[in-house]
């Protein structure tokens, strides 16, 4: 047979077309392997004195992850949470986070309530170059650590505003307001501070002390006592404070039962001072333990979820409703913060277009995210504090319920005013 280039060429073309069509159908009919999930490691205390708060905080994260996955995930990938108990101890926090990074291969770490745990975990995440968002820890020592080496800790972001402002300054602003409005006349210009022996306690006690000295003319600090975080016998310390006759007693504790014991013994000692509690008296478990005896206690938290809920802010109401529906309990500030942290991660990853840590960091530094709170990060990787951003709340407990007093706009909308506590009315 004569060699024909025409036949050979035609045969080659036909073979190529058949192979190309076959390859096309072959690759399009076999489903692409699923994209691996984005793993978020969450560390919270699930045992110990703060377990109640830690458990609800974890539930906030789970709710957010479920919603995001139901809506299609992040960059086409589902979120998987790896939740571990840090026992509120730095050594346990380090151990579980290291396990999450090395064995569970998480893409990012998030969570926490304890500042010492956060300080320890920062180093673990920095070593493995994994981004870390702390949700509950509020000590300014954390930001000091970040600022001491911003390059090493560049992957770290905190969701709580600086304590000096959120706790220290807000108390002083509020005290000045109620004195100027004539709602309270202090019988002495003295204040006492009683804090737990943790970074959270000492830092916030000092912040209050610094702002009182700076902004309250003529006022003197008469006592600065530091006690164990699980202390429940305060008789000697309260006797000492009573002898100094302050008009204000600021307490900083994280254990609700310890604060409940302090409240009870404070009332027994008949100390004629305002009882100001940083954080823990805002927790439901404190009110459960103290019952009606907490009437008149004033608390402060570096969060405005409670007043926003009360004034009917749509996002706060929506979150509380879906949290209650999912878990059967009312939401707490730590839960919404943790919930928002998962959404922040989602938004940052989508903005970055990937889960690359460097791209994530750049995205977080320029993020402007609003749900219940508005998150815009300052150069120190902490959120901007103030009205319209991350706000603080001061509220008074009266017969088992919380009455927001500050920021003033929420109190005004609700018609609440400061009331003289029962022990000062005698």
């Amino acid at each position, binding site marked *: 047979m004569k060699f024909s280039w025409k036949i050979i060429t035609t045969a080659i073309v036909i073979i190529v077309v058949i192979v190309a069509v076959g390859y096309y159908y072959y690759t399009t009919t076999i489903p692409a392997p699923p994209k691996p999930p984005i793993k978020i490691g969450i560390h919270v205390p699930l*045992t*110990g*004195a703060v*377990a*109640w708060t830690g458990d609800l905080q974890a539930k906030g994260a789970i709710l957010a992850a479920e919603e995001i996955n139901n809506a299609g995930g992040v960059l086409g990938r589902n979120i998987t949470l790896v939740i571990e108990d840090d026992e509120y101890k730095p050594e346990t926090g380090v151990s579980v986070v290291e396990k999450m990074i090395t064995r569970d291969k998480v893409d990012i770490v998030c969570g926490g309530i304890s500042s010492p745990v956060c300080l320890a975990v920062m180093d673990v995440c920095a070593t493995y170059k994994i981004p870390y968002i702390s949700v509950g820890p509020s000590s300014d020592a954390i930001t000091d650590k970040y600022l001491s080496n911003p390059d090493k800790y560049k992957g770290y972001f905190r969701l709580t505003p600086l304590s000096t402002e959120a706790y220290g300054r807000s108390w002083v602003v509020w005290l000045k307001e109620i004195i100027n409005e004539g709602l309270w006349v202090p019988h002495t210009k003295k204040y006492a501070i009683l804090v737990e*022996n943790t970074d959270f306690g000492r830092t916030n006690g000092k912040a209050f002390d610094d702002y009182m000295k700076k902004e309250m003319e003529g006022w003197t600090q008469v006592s*600065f*006592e*530091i*006690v164990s975080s*699980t202390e*429940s*016998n305060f*008789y*000697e*310390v309260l*006797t*000492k404070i009573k*002898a100094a006759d302050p008009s204000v007693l600021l307490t900083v504790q994280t*254990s*609700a*039962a310890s604060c*409940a*014991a302090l409240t009870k*013994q404070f009332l*027994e*000692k*008949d100390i004629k001072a305002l009882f100001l509690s940083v954080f823990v008296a805002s927790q439901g*478990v404190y009110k459960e*333990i103290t019952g009606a005896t907490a009437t008149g206690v004033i608390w402060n938290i570096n969060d405005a979820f409670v007043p926003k809920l009360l004034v009917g802010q749509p996002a706060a109401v929506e979150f509380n409703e879906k949290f209650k529906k999912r878990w059967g309990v009312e939401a707490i500030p730590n839960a919404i913060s943790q919930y928002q942290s998962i959404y922040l991660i989602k938004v940052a990853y989508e903005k970055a277009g990937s889960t690359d840590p460097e791209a994530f960091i750049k995205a977080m530094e320029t993020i402007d995210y609003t749900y219940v709170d508005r998150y815009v990060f300052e150069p120190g990787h902490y959120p901007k504090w103030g009205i319209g951003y991350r706000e603080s709340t001061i509220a008074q407990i009266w017969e088992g319920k919380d009455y927001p007093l500050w920021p003033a706009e929420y109190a005004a909308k609700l018609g609440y005013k400061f009331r003289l506590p029962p022990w000062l009315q005698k």
Partner: protein
Amino acid sequence: MIELNGVNIIYILEQLYNGVFYGAMFSLCAVGFSFIWGTMGILNFAHGAFYMLGAYFTWWIFSLLGISPIVSLLFAIGIIFLIGVGLEKVLISPLIGKHEWEEKALVITLGLSVIFENSVLLIAGAEWRGIPYYIEGQINLFGINFNFQQMAILIASILIMITFWALLKFTMIGKALRATAQNKEAASLYGINVKKVYLLTYGLSCSLIAIAGGLLAPILYIYPTVGGHPFLMSFVIVIIGGLGSLKGSIFSGFLVGVLRSIGIALFSATWADMILFIIMIIILAVKPTGLFGVKR
């Protein structure tokens, strides 16, 4: 305010009262710890766990049956006594007389402590529990508020220690216990059943600290690791007072309480426990057997 040379007398008296209250509480804790050492020669590392169990059983009975906390406490003491006797019979008694039995008993009691704490954590959870004051109300005398619960605990602690002393001093059982503590071989020769003495010793010791746990529960609350501090204080007090000396435990308990209150009054709460350990170290350096202890 009553002043003497610029010193607020009422404040000093109130701090002394706080110190005596604290001292009474921990003397009661320490007496049982010292008693076991004196009679059996073992350090009971489960001592703090029985404090915790006393508190929890009081709470459990009160919560489940809705009866008076005082009656709940009495039932709790009975249960703890039986648990103590049972543990001694099953775990410690078989070791007695064997090679290095004191060290093995120490390790067993340490293990028991961990088992009890974790069991309670699993059953009752980590949440702090509370029970109402046994006696509500307070009285103001000379500007000092005395709450009835504290006064009741103070009086009860002192009465219990007096009763325990009287038991040891004036009853046949007490004489048997003391004889065994002094020389168990001689006691045995005199017909004293040393094994039964040990059973009673362990049961009584656990009951004493369980009473402290139940009495203090309304003030200090209840949680799985609540026994840690009382155990540590018992240890320090017994070391200061002398291992095996009941008189020493009671005296040093009150001494520790008063010095702690003075430390807080003069310095700060941060110094409170530090002062105790400084005293312990000084006493051990000067008199290693403790204030009232004797060499074994």
